[in-house]
């Protein structure tokens, strides 16, 4: 192993060959360590940007909470009570130290702690998103294999066209059309509402179908297109495909056992990268189906100008995206040794 490492590394970063031996000793641990260190400035930046975006905006939260009839004195007193009269950096520092202790502040509207509001809502959003991702993947993988089996064949062309059509449907449009068909006309599924899985799992799943499909259908099209493209790239350019064919493996075997395995890496990255868009979609779908997740908590906080809750929700969403990308990178390097050696230089 150690003899093959320099050959891999030298053309990539010849002048740093002094670091090679150290990197070669524990490449995986080193890679993960570097990647974890890189997350710290990103997380700090995300928190700073969230706070700036939410607090530097015009409009007084106190005014909107007290209503238009409040006198300036009342507004000033209330702002002092909320700490809104403090200088910006002092407020940011207080907020950041609170966040590091797991305290996201208190809701202006209800007085409850923001972290407890978000913790109550998080499992709901997580269930919705995970079900959508898993179902989309389960359908997307066979579809992509079918399309990649004969590039430019009928299945491939139809798949490409239909997936583009699917990607063009806004999830709020899809949600309302689904509600109209399956809840209003056919009366098979509830149009809105939520039951926790602990209460009644069957009802929970019935509530989950329409929202999960609204999020999952565009996702399915997205995964299918990207996996197909990646599979085709593997089939055309990679030596191991030639080897597999040469030893007599059938076309399906090459696709499923060889190409798909390698395309999984790309798929993991795509799922992680796309999570931000997905969470945005969850916000609007939760609102339509009246599901008590983080997105709905955030929207009702936006309505009330409840800035601590909005800030907390945006922060939670952003941190989830950053951490998901971290996990994807680490998983990638665990599964694919080429990354560990190649990418350690950047």
């Amino acid at each position, binding site marked *: 192993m150690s003899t093959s490492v320099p050959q891999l590394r030298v053309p990539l970063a010849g002048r740093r060959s002094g670091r090679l031996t150290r990197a070669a000793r524990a490449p995986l641990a080193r890679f993960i360590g570097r990647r974890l260190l890189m997350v710290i400035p990103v997380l700090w930046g995300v928190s700073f940007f969230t706070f700036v975006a939410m607090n530097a905006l015009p409009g007084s939260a106190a005014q909107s909470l007290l209503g238009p009839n409040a006198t300036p004195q009342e507004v000033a007193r209330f702002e002092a009570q909320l700490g809104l009269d403090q200088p910006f950096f002092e407020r940011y520092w207080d907020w950041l130290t609170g966040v590091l202790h797991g305290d996201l502040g208190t809701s202006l509207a209800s007085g409850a702690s923001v972290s407890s509001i978000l913790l109550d809502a998080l499992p709901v959003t997580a269930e919705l998103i995970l079900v959508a991702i898993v179902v989309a993947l389960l359908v997307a993988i066979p579809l992509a294999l079918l399309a990649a089996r004969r590039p430019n064949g009928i299945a491939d062309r139809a798949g490409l066209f239909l997936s583009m059509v699917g990607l063009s449907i*806004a999830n*709020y*449009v899809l949600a309302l*059309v689904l509600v*109209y068909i399956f809840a209003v006309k056919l009366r098979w599924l509830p149009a809105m509402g939520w039951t926790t899985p602990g209460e009644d799992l069957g009802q929970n799943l019935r509530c989950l179908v329409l929202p999960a499909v609204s999020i999952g259908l565009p996702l399915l099209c997205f995964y299918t297109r990207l996996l197909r493209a990646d599979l085709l790239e593997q089939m055309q350019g990679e030596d191991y495909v030639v080897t597999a064919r040469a030893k007599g493996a059938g076309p399906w075997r090459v696709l499923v056992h060889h190409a798909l395995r390698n395309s999984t890496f790309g798929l993991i990255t795509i799922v992680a990268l796309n999570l931000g868009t997905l*969470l945005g979609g969850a916000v609007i779908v939760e609102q*339509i189906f009246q599901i008590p997740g983080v997105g709905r908590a955030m*929207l009702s906080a936006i309505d009330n100008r409840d800035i601590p809750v909005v800030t907390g929700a945006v922060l939670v969403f952003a941190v989830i*995206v950053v951490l998901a990308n971290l996990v994807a990178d680490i998983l990638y390097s665990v599964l694919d040794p080429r990354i560990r050696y190649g990418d350690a230089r950047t």
Partner: protein
Amino acid sequence: MATRGPDLAVTAAPAVLEPALEPSAGRTAGRWRRSLGVTIPAAMLVVIFAACFLWPLLGSLPEPTGGNILDSDLPIGSAGHLLGTDEVGDDTLSRILHGGQASLEIALAVNAIGMLVGGLLGAAAAYWGGWRDTVVMRVLDMLIAFPSLVLALALAQGLGPGKLNTIWALCVFSVPAFARVARAATLRLREQPFMTAARLSGTRQRRMLLGHIAPNILPQLLTFALLGMGITIILEGALSFLGLGVQPPDPSWGNMIAQGQGILSAEPRFVLIPSAALFLTVVSFNLLGDALRARWST
């Protein structure tokens, strides 16, 4: 000897051309079909733009707001109201077309700003390289880490509703996206011989960026802008749907869908008509962007 020269050329010419002709004849059908992939969505977009921006100028359409309450809830196909009227008597067709104007204007502005600011930023970052590239890209990575709709929602709320503020809120996601595309395209370009030649002949930085890099990355930015139009129109619709974009009574597809949501079971057309308009526009942009990308990448 001298006489054989032209002779050879004449006899050689068909021999050279022949093999080239045969596949090209076979390829005509494929080329025609491929061009169909571009012309159909392009024609749909021309029709949509003309309907939204030119039809209201003809003066035969009723105003999108301030309709007569006595004309409320007319069905599709009524005299003078092709798509009927809503519960306050406003003409649905007129609202769809004016709403489309708002959507398209916002999407065009967001993508133009994204292409200009993001494109220059990404190209400059890739051209300079080094720490400036790192700083610019890290900041943009951070912006991309934010769920775009979540951030746009929060910003739209903070800035207050309205067309201009919707544009600013959506630019937060378009600028970094364009910057990434421009950066990747410029990085591929940087080591090309003509770039080295231009650098060696002492071309100034501004001329390098605007005269050499910009024209070469423009096709990629344009195809990305077409896909970006689709995304922006959906996001703008989402903001308006949630009451944070274009405000009623001014029409937009998003707020028309939101208004129709309450009477979905009784009158589904108030959801379905703006939904269809939204879908057709987005699918045209997406199909055109996809077809052009496939054509220009080969």
